[in-house]
């Protein structure tokens, strides 16, 4: 063997491969965005903080201690700051996931497999709840059911029926479960309808030939085949629900019904960050266990039911149940989308809260000038400098994050697909999945832990717009990496190699060959990052300062101050921007595809 090649030369040649250079670079970036902040968080839970001097005389900032862990897990306070919120988090997330699974699964089956009327219309509207900010429903719920407890005006319910809703209906477990189930069911709908579409009816028909009853087929054949999709949907819903902040805060805080997510927030506000960080660690742990279980279950139970062409889908006749089924689905969508949006709109048009007569309607909170008598003299949102500034921040943030994340998704896709099966590619692919394991509020806490102080020559990034970009980019990476990888898979390696033969360098190949060919496929990554940043609250609530406020955090502020007109008007503004942004992106993307 003539193995004379020295190691250094081989390394040099390796480093000439763009996917290696790019892969290394991206791994470094991922480490900085996810791993380092995470380690800082862990570190901060186990050392004394400056703020701890208030709590313990032995506190020595910077020294190691188990004080925080003992305080959270084994102290008289533990029940209130940890065990009860944990129980609430698990109870709400579990109930939400099951309810959402039931609703979404039922809707998917009705749309894909039955002769329900107006199936296509239902299918179009089915996913809208997910596009709305998750706490839209919570605010609408408050507009309707609010009672005297939190002060300010009472809700429409009292006005219409003269009954004051009891606390258990207005706040806490029940409204949280109902509003978030209506928000999250589209996950199940999308996953299960996808699985049902690719399920060959022959599998069911062969059951029929064997003489099985329709119900038995549903139970013994269809349902087991849908199980992987259902489980995925459950896990996805659970991991989102457990990390969400807005709804549990709006609906839970008035009756001191705290979940882990809201406890993290209040702990930061109360200047006990270590408690918040430990809570975040527990959330991350829960999320990881759930996702691990998912991989295990799905790994064993993924059925190949896609038969390629000639797939036939059997339609189950509903008979007398056709219209009731449609009414149920229409009502569901109505409750999840139209009723809440109308409630919010109505609220924004009321000059004085509490007065639901037509004479009280006004556009003041949209376009009115400042009047000392109303809302402490704040002007309508469309001429309010603070809100317009926040809107500009939101748009700017969403567009920048969408562009950066989408671009990084394509680059990750490139490094992973071209470096296929190398260790680097595997590390990169799995690393880009990491932010998915960390619930939003915990992710915000991690960033707070790292960037609230200066790191070496770097000044503290807390309070900067740049930090918001960082955290949103990091959190949105898993999805854009997915869509980047899958769109890169569609681009044969030879197309780039043909560019190499023509003498194009990597930048020329990327710009003129790879980018044009992957952009259309990666569009969903861009759009999703845009939408989720535009309505993001849980992720950034801990990192926002007055200068960097966004529309979502403004809503939050107005809700806290009891100005529901402003809060609701801003939510509607967010909805308009999200829908408009998506529409625009699809138009642009559509054009590109038809070149």
């Amino acid at each position, binding site marked *: 063997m003539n*193995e004379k090649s020295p190691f250094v030369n081989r390394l040099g040649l390796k480093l000439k491969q763009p996917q290696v250079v790019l892969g290394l670079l991206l791994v470094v970036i991922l480490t900085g965005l996810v791993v380092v902040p995470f380690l800082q968080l862990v570190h901060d839970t186990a050392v004394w903080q400056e703020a701890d001097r208030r709590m313990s005389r032995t506190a020595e900032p910077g020294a190691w201690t188990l004080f925080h862990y003992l305080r959270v897990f084994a102290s008289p306070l533990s029940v209130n700051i940890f065990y009860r919120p944990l129980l609430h988090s698990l109870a709400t997330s579990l109930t939400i996931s099951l309810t959402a699974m039931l609703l979404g699964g039922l809707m998917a089956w009705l749309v894909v497999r039955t002769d329900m009327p107006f199936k296509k219309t239902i299918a179009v509207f089915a996913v809208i709840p997910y596009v709305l900010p998750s706490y839209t429903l919570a605010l609408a719920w408050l507009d309707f059911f609010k009672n005297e407890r939190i002060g300010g005006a009472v809700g429409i319910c009292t006005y219409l029926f003269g009954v004051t809703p009891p606390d258990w209906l207005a706040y806490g477990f029940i409204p949280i479960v109902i509003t978030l189930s209506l928000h999250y069911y589209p996950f199940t709908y999308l996953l299960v309808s996808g699985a049902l579409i690719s399920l060959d009816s022959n599998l069911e028909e062969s059951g029929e030939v064997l003489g099985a009853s329709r119900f038995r087929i549903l139970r013994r054949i269809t349902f087991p085949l849908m199980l992987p999709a259902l489980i995925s949907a459950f896990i996805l819903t659970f991991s989102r629900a457990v990390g969400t902040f807005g709804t549990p805060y709006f609906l839970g805080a008035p009756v001191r019904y705290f979940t882990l997510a809201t406890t993290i927030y209040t702990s930061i506000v109360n200047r006990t960050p270590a408690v918040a960080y430990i809570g975040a660690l527990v959330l991350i742990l829960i999320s990881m266990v759930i996702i691990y279980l998912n991989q295990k279950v799905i790994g064993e139970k993924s059925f190949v039911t896609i038969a390629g062409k000639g797939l036939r889908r059997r339609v189950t006749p509903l008979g007398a149940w056709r219209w009731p089924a449609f009414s149920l689905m229409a009502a569901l969508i109505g409750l999840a989308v139209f009723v809440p949006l109308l409630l919010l709109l109505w609220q924004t048009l009321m000059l004085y809260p509490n007065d639901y007569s037509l004479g009280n309607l006004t556009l003041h909170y949209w376009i009115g000038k400042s009047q000392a008598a109303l809302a402490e003299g704040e002007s309508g949102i469309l001429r309010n400098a603070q809100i317009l500034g926040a809107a500009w921040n939101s748009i700017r943030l969403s567009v920048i994050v969408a562009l950066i994340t989408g671009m990084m998704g394509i680059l990750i896709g490139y490094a992973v697909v071209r470096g296929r099966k190398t260790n680097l590619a595997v590390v990169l692919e799995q690393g880009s999945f990491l932010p998915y394991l960390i619930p939003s509020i915990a992710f915000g806490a991690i960033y707070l832990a790292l960037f609230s102080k200066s790191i070496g020559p770097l000044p503290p990034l807390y309070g900067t717009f740049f930090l918001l970009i960082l955290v949103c980019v990091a959190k949105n990476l898993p999805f854009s990496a997915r869509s980047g990888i899958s769109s890169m898979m569609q681009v044969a390696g030879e197309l780039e190699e043909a560019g190499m*033969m023509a*003498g194009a360098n990597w930048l020329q190949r990327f710009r003129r060959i790879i980018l044009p060919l992957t952009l259309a496929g990666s569009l969903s990554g861009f759009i999703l990052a845009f939408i989720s940043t535009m309505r993001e609250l849980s992720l950034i609530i801990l990192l926002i300062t007055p200068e960097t406020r966004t529309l979502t955090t403004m809503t939050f502020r107005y809700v806290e101050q009891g100005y529901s007109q402003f809060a609701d008007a801003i939510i509607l503004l967010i909805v308009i921007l999200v829908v408009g942004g998506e529409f625009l992106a699809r138009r642009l993307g559509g054009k590109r595809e038809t070149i």
Partner: protein
Amino acid sequence: MAMIEIEGLTKRFGGVTAVDRLTLAVEAGEFLTLLGPSGCGKTTVLRMIAGLEVPDAGEIRIGGKTVFSATRGLFVSPGKRGVGLVFQSYALWPHMTVRQNVAFGLEIRKVEPARMQKDVSEALAYMHLEGMENRYPQQMSGGQQQRVALARMLVAGPEVFLMDEPLSNLDAKLRIEMRVEIKRLHREAKATTVYVTHDQTEALTLSSRVAVMEEGRLVQATPPREIYRRPANLFVADFIGSPTINLIPGKIVQKNGRTFFEGEALSLPTPALAAHVGAEVTAAVRPEEIRIETGESGDAVSGEVYAVLPAGSETIVQVRRKGRIFNVRVMGETSLNIGEIVCMQFIPEAVIFFQGDQGNRIDTGQE
């Protein structure tokens, strides 16, 4: 015109050695085909010449210039090697028109626009693609896409043409048409050409030399006629030719002072193998070197017609003798019937012998 010299070229993928210490020189202006079954490493060799794959060891020189050397850590990028490559899948850019596809390389090299227009138009005209400049590849037939791929390679004026199974995605009729086209291209451009295929007919009709590869190693690199007539070993003999060559295992023996090949189904006088008496060998006969006669005759051996497979200009007759099937090629049609007893006549000079153990051809000094 440029010569390609390859020395000790090795490439491993994980634990698998795809190309093993390959040494080969392609003369300037030559048309060399790399031939072998799939997975033999032929495409990897081509990709290493192009610079798309980095070898683990060895050296490559093109036109006297070293483009890769493992010992010196030297690697010249594909665009600077003066080679053009046609991919199996054509690899035309789907978001560019035909003209843009062909012009891309010139744009990268910053050729001035007027010159570029002229060169591109000429290349398209040369490949009979006039009037299709503004089409997208997906709007064209496979044959037309192939022409665009060739035009794209030609326009840069490379000194070396590399082609990776360029005809394998075409139907039989188009394949013959494009074969003629490629031959014309090579003759007129006089570029050194390395052509990869697993189709032996393509290899034998196009090449000035055929290099047969087996499991990453070069087995034989000789003109097509040599490959067919004097295969270096059993692998080449068996791989080349359709229907496959007839192989009969046996032994060289001496009877009454004369040397014979003794196989179970066949016995032949082999005076040229006197030096090999006692050796285990395999006799090999091409189907067209056996003659079938209906009557008994001198040294012919008899057998039973097992199958008759007419193919227009020729007929393949399978004859069974002592449990062994012989392929025989007969020109035109035949009136033989299945089950009929016939005689097969072998021409001793046309029989080649291979060593029983290693399978290498025994040189009999003939031809």
